[in-house]
């Protein structure tokens, strides 16, 4: 696990390094329909519609790192799935450079919380599977060189032929990130990518993502629970209200200069103010979620 890898030269030959994609989330609402058919009426198990997201409107400028933070169950992952095309909005639309998103596509790379590596494929095969699926016409030799590029980028040289069960959680997520980047997407979507990792590995991987982002500067949407993570990585932080009918409460600009280092980040004058604002918002929303749950149970 070498941390500093000289990659700038090797990665830059992948075409269209600096994407200029504009992501626009236009009045997106998501309603999960309840059960009201006669069968559930007969069993007295009817339920009302659940409004997860209501009128989400967000413009994401090209080459920005945007974090979405909010209390548990606020529909952050639902929003990310809609952007990824894995789930359809009930109303509204997601536009990429003005074109509506209808289904998943290779212009969006997804990093999953549970890594979602194929256990029967080695590190190399997992990444190559992505490249080959997206573009089967690339010759195998070229596929291999792209795989090697991204294995180097995430610092996994030497682990190419290992299978996921032989890797630690942190190493698995490095593969997940390499796989998402190897298809050269215009946007990287990350759904709580470090949620399952211990604190030390988590910090280490956040530093890695910061380092990789400095090189690639792709548009990133990161779903997270962690205030420090959002502050370290983002240009903008989108704070969401609690569900049901979650909305965007506030969008914070993070003015810290790059490259950023976690050790010196809190010396910036705006750091503590931003952190306090986020803590206040999250604790208020979380308290309200718990209060409403108590109310619902009694």
């Amino acid at each position, binding site marked *: 696990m070498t941390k500093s890898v000289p990659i700038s030269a090797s990665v830059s030959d992948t075409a269209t390094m600096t994407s200029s994609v504009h992501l626009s989330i236009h009045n997106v609402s998501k309603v999960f329909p309840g059960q009201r058919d006669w069968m559930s009426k007969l069993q007295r198990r009817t339920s009302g519609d659940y409004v997860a997201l209501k009128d989400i409107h967000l413009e994401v400028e090209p080459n920005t790192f945007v974090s979405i933070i909010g209390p548990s169950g606020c529909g952050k992952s639902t929003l990310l799935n809609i952007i*990824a*095309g*894995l789930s359809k909005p009930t109303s509204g639309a997601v536009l990429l450079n003005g074109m509506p998103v209808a*289904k*998943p*596509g*290779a212009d*969006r*790379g*997804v990093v*999953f919380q*549970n890594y*979602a590596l*194929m*256990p*029967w*494929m080695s590190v190399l095969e997992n990444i190559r*599977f*992505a490249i080959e*699926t*997206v573009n089967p016409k690339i010759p195998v030799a070229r596929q291999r060189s792209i795989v090697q590029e991204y294995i180097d980028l995430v610092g996994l040289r030497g682990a190419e032929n290992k*299978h*996921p*069960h*032989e890797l630690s959680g942190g190493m698995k997520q490095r593969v997940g990130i390499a796989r998402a980047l190897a*298809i050269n997407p215009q946007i990287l979507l990350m759904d709580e990518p470090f949620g399952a990792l211990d604190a030390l590995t988590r910090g280490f991987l956040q530093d890695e993502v910061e380092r990789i982002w400095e090189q690639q500067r792709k548009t990133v949407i990161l779903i997270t629970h962690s205030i420090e993570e959002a502050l370290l990585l983002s240009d903008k932080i989108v704070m969401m209200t609690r569900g049901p009918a979650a909305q965007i409460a506030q969008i914070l600009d993070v003015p810290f200069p790059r490259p950023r280092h976690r050790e010196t980040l809190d010396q910036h004058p705006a750091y503590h103010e931003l952190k306090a604002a986020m803590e206040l918002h999250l604790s208020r929303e979380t308290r309200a979620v718990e209060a409403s749950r108590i109310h619902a149970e009694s």
Partner: protein
Amino acid sequence: MANPALSPALSRSKSITLTTNQKAALLFLAILATLLLVWELGARLQWFSPLMPSASQTLIDLWGWISDPFFDYGPNDKGIGWLLLTSLRRVLTGFAIGSAIAIPLGILIGLSEVVSRAVDPFIQILRPVSPLAWLPLGLALLKNSENTALFVIAITSIWPTLINTRFGVQHVDPSYLDVARTLGASRWRTLTKVILPAAAPYIVSGLRISIGIAWLVIVAAEILVGGSGIGYFVWNEWNNLKITSIITAIIVIGIVGLILDRLFAILQNWVAFGRKV
């Protein structure tokens, strides 16, 4: 190792106590010796039926069969190796036919919730039926004892494989399918590169159960159908009142069943990649 105070204590305890495996092996030998001794004494002192041979006589005959497995003095006097090969050929052929039906069908059923629910009553009713109940039907349909044996083995092999394949296909981790979708994989590529490898451990565990049951059933099928094979041998030797041959057959059938099971366990491990089924 690094702690000098610990290492002498460790090495001393090693020289005195036995590992769990060593203890188990000793106990195994003790049980075996006791069984053989009681058997030998009982046979000599006429505790059992007069048909019951002594342990020593059985071991001598067992060695006779095993030391010369491939003799052939006519249809009713063949070495145990030939008998086993005949039965194994039948089991493997029937098992191959059954699996060739069960795996594709299981995949098809697993992929569609509608088909799965529609076919389920057939599976649930046919699955608990003893394989031997199919035997007369096979004779009636095929009019040939050899093919009837294959038919029975094939039917037997279908159910565990079919049910496990369906389960494996239905329970592919949804995040693997999400990965395939975000990459824009075709249905065929998703099936061959994601669903099948994901379901492979379940499919192989179904095959393992199937081959075990097939090997159980072949003896009964050969007793009923007759002609050749280890099952027929057991029945023939009973007619000759050669009990030592029957005991030999029991031991050999058990060992072959064990080997088949181990082979599929290896295959299971080979497709698992750290997953547990």
